[in-house]
């Protein structure tokens, strides 16, 4: 089963860019409100369903995208993984 990830970026620009490139690699990705536990900002985050953390990391890296935070959702908690 895939893990459930939440990724946030400094600017919404990079959220949109990351969504685009992850989708291009066939990864299951959605735009969601940033969970309050992660940030008090009212912005958008990426929700990603993928087994391998490295796959996500590599795609982002190849596209010069540096997440502000990469979290794995475990029950109702968000565990920082970057």
């Amino acid at each position, binding site marked *: 089963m895939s893990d459930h990830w939440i990724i946030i970026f400094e600017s919404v620009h990079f959220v949109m860019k990351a969504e685009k490139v992850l989708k291009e690699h066939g990864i299951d990705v959605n735009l969601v409100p940033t969970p309050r536990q992660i940030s008090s*900002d*009212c912005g958008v985050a990426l929700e990603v369903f993928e087994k391998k953390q490295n796959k996500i990391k590599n795609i982002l890296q190849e596209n010069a995208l540096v997440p502000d935070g990469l979290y794995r959702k475990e029950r109702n908690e968000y565990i920082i993984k970057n």
Partner: protein
Amino acid sequence: MSIYFDNASTSYPKPECVFEAMKYYCKNIGANAGRSAHRRSVYASKLVFETRESIAGLIGAKDSSRIIFTQNATEALNLSILGCGLKRGDHIITSSIEHNSVMRPLKFLEKERKILVDIIKCDKNGLLDPSDIKSKITKKTKFIIINHASNVIGTVLPIGAIGQIAHSHNILFLVDAAQTIGCMPFDIDENHIDLLAFSGHKALLGPQGVGCLYIREGIDLNPLKFGGTGSYSEFEMQPDFLPDRFESGTLNLPGISGLKKGIEFIKEKRIINIQKQMHALTDELINRLSKIEKLIIYGTRDKTLQTGIVSLNLNGKEPSEVGKVLDNEYDIAVRVGLHCSPQTHKTIGTFPKGTVRISLGLFNTTEHIDRLCEALCQITG
């Protein structure tokens, strides 16, 4: 039939898809970008992102976060000139055919911060010898600012050679591409451009109210505006990452939706084909005007050296009078006077009266040129 020859000021008409997109946005979306996570806001954020990507593709920028939306080219130029931290004694080189949106901020800094400005004289056709720039460079030279093409006579300046000079001397290079973006292909890397300013409402066919500044990676400017960006709201300091750093406040989303479609329209036509079309029309215009007696044409008269702008005067007639008659009696819109660039008119010898400027756009035809030439023949008598 109403004829529009003022495309260097702003293009008209715009393609149908441009104002349809604006209407769609206003009617059905409405929300702000980058401020919320509801679907309308996400739509808006995506629209802004996609427009940035499209512009990046147009100029050859690899990272679209380096494209900043401004109100117009003037704001993009001001942000570059006022924001790059020029200090007392710093030396700037520019040309004698710049627009007031470059000359005025430079004059302000000359007075307020005691920077030194060297204005390189172009010849009477607006041509500039890059070695004249090179010979003015000193240890204090921090900035070279050049427009890609004159908005009065259309002369295209050799930005490739000037960029090479700037690059080899480690001098910041700003290009004002207000008159060339969308009507001739060029690349920021090939021309060593550090900062590129342009309007969305001229040959990109967008509506008024959106301009752009490209900022090369590694170049740090101070913002002109500080405020809400939707990011890092808990911090009181302005973000230091792009594009947020320079985009405080609500963006012009109806304008950006229109611009996106305008760019799609020209990309579909391909800029290289647009350039060919404009070359042919410019050639036709110059040839036809050359046959009119008592008519003086300024500039290179060579389609390969200029854009679709031709400045002229009728012997013994005030430009303003000619403009009025063309508008009132022939329904032909041109721009007369100094065109926000007194420097250029001093260079070509038409200051302070100015000229009658015919500026072609994508939707002008040879029939329009026929009508103009007939009118001018009648006016000269």
